[in-house]
Each structure stands twice: as C-alpha cells, then as structure tokens.
C-alpha cells in the first residue's frame, strides 16, 4: 500500500493524477458519474463495493472448486466489476492501478476458463484482492487531495485544452487510458485513442516542439505511429504496454518543460 501511496504522490506532483475525461469518455461500467468529484462523500460506498466484489469473486472461485467451470460462470467477474461506482472512481483517478485491476479480473476469469488448478485460481484471486485494496487506498488518498483542492475537477463534458501545456496534460491522460483500455482487452478502442490523440492533440503541438527539439519529436512520432500501435496490435502484456507508455510520458514531460520555457518567453502579439 505504501508503494501505491508514494506512486500517487509522485503523480500528483506532476499534476497528472486525474485522467481528464472528455465528453465522449464513458467508463466500461457506463457514464462516469459526478461522484468522482466528491470522493470523500463516497468512500464508505467504495469500501463496501470493494468488499462486495471480493466476496462475489470468492463465490465464483468456490463454485469453480466445487462444481466446475460452467457453474462458476467466470464472466460474472467482469460484470460485477462493471456494476460498481468504485470502477469510475479509480479509472478517473489512478489509471495504472485501474489497469492492474483489469489484469487481475482477467487473471481470475481466464484461469477458471482454462480449467487451471485450484491453487493457481486462488493465486489469481489473491492478486486481484490485493490490487483492489491498493486501489481503494489510492482513491482514499486522492479524496484527501481533492478535499484540499489539489486535484483538478474531472471534466464530465468536453472542454478541450486551451494551450500547449494543457494539451500535453490531456495527451498524458489519454495515454493512461490507452493502457486501461488495453487491460480491459479493448484493443481496438485503445488503438483508436492513440490515433485520435495523435491527430487531434499531438499534431497540434509538434510543430512548436520540433523547432525546439527535433529529435524528441521524431521519437514521439515513432512512438505514436509505430511502437505503441504495434504493441497494441500484437501479443504484448499490459506491463509491456505500460512500459511503452511510461517512456512516452517521460518524453512528454520533457516536451512540457520545453513548451513551458517557450511560454514564459513568448513573443507578445501586440
């Protein structure tokens, strides 16, 4: 848990904790509700949901052990996850853990569907439980930051970035969503996000960037158009995709520094 907290703090430090949601952004469980902007008021509910979910998964695993694959109906693991509001709370606040939850959900589901041994299924279940508690911890910490006004409000309707620095923030948030969607096994959706992010956001700032650091833009061009889409199309693991995205995030942070420097020395229009 401490590790997750320090990760969350680190992310807050770079002002990218919140994945800003655009109008078209819908969580896998449906529309993102306004509850994500009132985390503290909903912590009890989230805690209850995590406990409920863990109990439900345990029931599925137990039925598998007693009566086999069909009785277990492992697909319900996903259905239960999509039914809880906690889903949107973690998705809109800390995408890296959100992606791990999906890995855990599929770990349980697929180990059952593949008729794995009881121990192996229980091991997947334990991994899922662990990451769910980590996620709850991350949301609790995010609630504290939100109460202190340190979190950007999650946009439920389209606003759009107003300058190149905000554009970088949105690109970084969208890349996190790419990992999340990939973890949900929504490969096409994750690839669409990459293409749309490139064309509608990155393309708008790369002209400015290339006049400051052409090599950095060349690398990001390749990341957006080759490395990441190929990874998403192939048989990569979530960790491999996360690594590619982490590398891109670092480059984007450098880009943001360059753009901020330019912004502070910008030429006056009049």
């Amino acid at each position: 848990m401490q590790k997750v907290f320090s990760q969350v703090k680190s992310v807050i430090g770079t002002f990218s904790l919140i994945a800003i949601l655009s109008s078209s952004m819908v969580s896998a469980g449906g529309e993102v509700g306004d509850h994500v902007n009132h985390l503290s008021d909903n912590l009890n509910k989230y805690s209850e949901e995590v406990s409920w979910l863990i109990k439900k998964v345990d029931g599925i695993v137990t039925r598998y052990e007693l009566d086999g694959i069909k009785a277990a109906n492992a697909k319900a693991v996903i259905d239960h996850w999509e039914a809880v509001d906690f889903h949107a709370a973690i998705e809109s606040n800390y995408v890296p853990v959100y992606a791990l939850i999906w890995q855990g959900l599929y770990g349980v589901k697929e180990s059952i569907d593949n008729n794995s041994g009881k121990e192996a299924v229980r091991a997947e279940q334990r991994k899922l439980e662990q990451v769910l508690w980590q996620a709850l911890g991350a949301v609790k910490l995010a609630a504290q930051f939100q109460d202190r006004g340190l979190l950007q409000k999650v946009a439920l309707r389209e606003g759009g970035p107003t300058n190149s620095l905000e554009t970088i923030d949105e690109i970084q948030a969208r890349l996190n969503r790419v990992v999340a969607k990939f973890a949900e096994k929504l490969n096409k959706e994750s690839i669409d996000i990459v293409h749309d992010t490139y064309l509608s956001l990155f393309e708008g700032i790369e002209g400015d960037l290339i006049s400051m650091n052409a090599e950095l833009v060349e690398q990001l061009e390749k990341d957006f158009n080759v490395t990441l889409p190929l990874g998403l199309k192939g048989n990569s693991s979530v960790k491999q995709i996360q690594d590619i995205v982490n590398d891109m995030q670092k480059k984007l942070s450098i880009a943001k520094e360059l753009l901020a420097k330019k912004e502070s020395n910008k030429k006056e229009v009049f």
Partner: protein
Amino acid sequence: MQRRTFLQQLGALGLLGACPAILPQHLAAAPSMVSVKQLPKLKGELTLYLGRGEGGLYENVLDAIKKRNPDFDLKIRRGPTAALANAIVAEAQANVRRAEVFWAVDSGAIGLLTDKGLAQPLPEDLTSQLRPEFRFPNWAPVTGRIRTLAYNTERLKASDIPDSILALAESDLSIAWAPAYASFQSFVTAMRLLIGEQKTINWLKAMNKRAKKYAGELGVVLAAERGEVDLGLANHYYTLRLKSGKPDATVDLAFTNNDAGCLVNASGILALKQSDTAINFIRYLLTTEVQSYLASEAYEIPLIGDLAPPAGLPALQTISPPKVDLTQLANLRPTLNMMRKAGVL
C-alpha cells in the same frame, strides 16, 4: 521548375462566381494594412467557436485581444473544426444561434456554413484588406498554407522533381503521404475539382503503388528528411519548422506548377450574427500585428497587404497555385469515396 505568378492568373479569377470581390480594378491597388492601434476598442460579449489547432498560438492571439480590451467578454467553445461546423449547422436547424463568430483551421468547414447561408456579409473595407485572390463576401481567410513537395536534399536536386503533381505518379521517385490527414484530403478535393474524378482516381491508384503512408504530415516530412523516401506531400510549415529546430536538416521545399500540388488553403473566420463587435473582432485578426505574429510563430502565410511570408518560404507571387474556390473544398464525401475506391483509405 516553371513558375508563374498569381498576377498572371488574376485576370481570370474575376470570372469565378464564388469570388465576386475579385475584380480587375483591385489588381493595381495594394491592399491597405491596418494596425491594431487604428481599431476601436471591443466591448460587450462575444461567443467564438474556435477550431482546435496550432497548439495554442491562436489562443495567444485571443489572449492578447482580451488583454487589450478589458471591457470585452470573449466566450470560447473549442473543438475539432469539422465538429464545430456541424454543431453550428445543427444549432441553426434548431433555430439556435449560440456562436457569433467561427474561426476554423481550414476553409472546407467555412464552405459548409457559407453553403447553408449561415455566414453574414462582411463589409468591403474589411475584405479589401486581404489580397485580391483571398477576398470573399461573407468570410475572411486569416492565414494561408501551401501544399509542397518536401524532398531529401541528399537524394534529389530541385531540378529532379516534376513540376506537375500528375507527373509525380509516373516518376520513379519514392514518396511519402498521409491520406488520412485533413489537409491531404483538401488537396485531393482540389484535384477532383480541377481535373475531374476519373483522372484523380487514376492518379491516386498510380501513386498508391509507390507511396508510403504516414499518419500525419510532420511524419511525412521527417520520412523525407531521414531518407526513407525521396520526397513527401505536405503543407509547407512542417518543413520550415523542422529546419528551424534542425538547421542542417536534409530537406527542402519544391512546388508544382498551377495544379492542386501547390494549392494555397487557408484558415478562415466568419460572422454568424450581424454585430459591430463580431466584425471588429474579425478586424483584429487581420491586423499587421496578428498576421506578422502568426507568420513568425506558426509559419503561416500572411494574407493581407505585402507582409513577408515566413522565413524559408518564397513569396506567394513567385509560386503559381491553382484557381480553386476554397469554400468548395468542404464537399469531402466524394473525395473520401474516391480515395476508398482507389484503395488509398
């Protein structure tokens, strides 16, 4: 490469019904340039729909206008240009006019609104600030961009490059292009309008055999610079910006002659309601200061008076773009159908 000038063509431009402001008497008169200092202060509220693009440079212009006019309350809705144009049409059909001014990053979206009769007439003293070939009765181009051939200078000399976009398909050059990119599709639309569907489809098919696809046009220019291809089809500013950040970049610009390959397209603005504030706001965008700013910072081509083009680009008068009514570039559907038919999309 042969060159012709705009002036050689302007006599014929007056024949274009879509460009009624282009009259022979304008040819001799140099358009006047207006400084922001000559403009009235903006007051009251104005709602602008702003097409996303240029990484915030348009926003810098808007911030500067707001700073200069403290009694002016500018409300901005941002989004992709095409989506905003569609929203304006939908709002009009619902008898709602939220937007008073629309600033689009490409003229195709402007055409969609002028065709629907939603654009209000602009005063002649405003449109006459623009160069004659960019005067329209109910919208104002803000800045221009030209289609170019960005070529690798270690692999080619300028004289190796055909001066006809059609001839490019018959050459043995390796080529980069970005068919999914909006500017490319506007260029194909221009070609369709200039030479017809069948010839355009034939060209697309022939090119498709030798062209390598990229997602965006900076990628196209980078591919030419790296030597992955001999040349790429792209708007001019990508090459200029690359050379600004990498002065030894092995890429340069070439232009075709009087065909869609050197189309000059433009961002544009129109008023959706008749109001002095809307018109005066548009005047700010056509000032010497804003035009110079966008030329130096965004490498866009100024369209008023005789302001210099961005560094590294020849004067427009030395290039021979085709005569195309930019508002007709809005009709993308037949273009996309053609591109699919040719296997390009």
